[in-house]
């Protein structure tokens, strides 16, 4: 197995790609969190409405 030193271009490109991946992952986590909160809110609202109307409690769609 031969080791070789990476060129400055390769290192720079890798750093930029790593930053882009990190940014995309953080963005994705934020989106999943937001979607989860929204779905929770929808279900809580649907539950309240169902209870108030005396209807069976179901998941919001």
């Amino acid at each position, binding site marked *: 197995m031969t080791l070789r030193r990476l060129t400055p271009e*390769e290192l720079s490109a890798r750093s930029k790609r790593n930053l882009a991946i990190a940014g995309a992952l953080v963005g994705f986590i934020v989106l999943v969190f937001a*979607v989860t909160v929204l779905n929770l809110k929808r279900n809580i609202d649907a539950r309240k409405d169902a209870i108030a109307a005396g209807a069976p409690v179901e998941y919001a769609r």
Partner: protein
Amino acid sequence: MTESASQSALSTAQPEDFFQLLKPRVMSVVIFTAVVGLVVAGGDLDWLSAAIAILCIAVGAGAAGALNMALEGETDALMRRTRGRPVAAGRVNKNDAMTFGVILSVFSVMLLGMATNWLAGGLLLMTILYYAVFYTLLLKRRTPQNIVIGGAAGAFPPVIGWAAATGEAPWPAWLLFAIIFLWTPPHSWALALYSAGDYARAGIPMMPVARGAKSTRLQILIYSLVFVPVAVAPGLLGLGGVLYLAVSILGGLGFLFLAFRLWRSRAGDQPDKAEAVGREAALYDVRAEAKPARNLFAFSILYLMALFAALLVESITALPGLS
């Protein structure tokens, strides 16, 4: 760590190269038509979910583009219009592009399903598979009808937007689908008429290559005669209003005029002389005999955008507080 355990070069691909894999110009059209589908549908989707839905549809369409470029790298390298693409130019490894496309596909479909509903998520998945597998792998090289059947992939975004907003895909959503579906052949064949040499070199049986320019010009006219009434239909069926009706009729007459003029022309008869020269930006820079094809190609984009913009304007101005 600054050393690699391999002799092979580490990729020097930049994040911008990966962004180019998403076909940003196609993505902008997808975003626009999906927004129109979502807004016209109505429904009670909150703004955050709607924004996430549009983002997912855009990323899903981009993922399909990345998969297409990964699968078509060698073919793209043979065509002047596409040889600058990241995989074709060797800036991004084929496997990296494939992985990128698969990951974005999975995440966009899952997130769209979670944020809105699984009808929308399922339609997005179907669109990605339709474009990347059915069109790119199976259709494109086998039949001159490739763009006719494959055009359905580009027609799905307003239906997905509609489904995201309401959880349903009723007939008006499919009317928007039909508009884009029938618009695609005259639009794509007009471009193919003045870049037929590229397609021939790449071995892709686009209509001008497989059936000749004369047959292509006739088929463009026939498709235009079918497309324009369908484009006007939303105005007559209550989906669009007076603005839409005016835009669709006036633009439709322009479309038919240009299609008729193209049919009468000799565009594409001498493909090597007629095609664009070199740069992708030269799509609008063609020789005199191919100008009717170039004009229809350019006008078709304007017409489609105008149709959807009219629907969007009418829907927004009908919202409470704005009318």
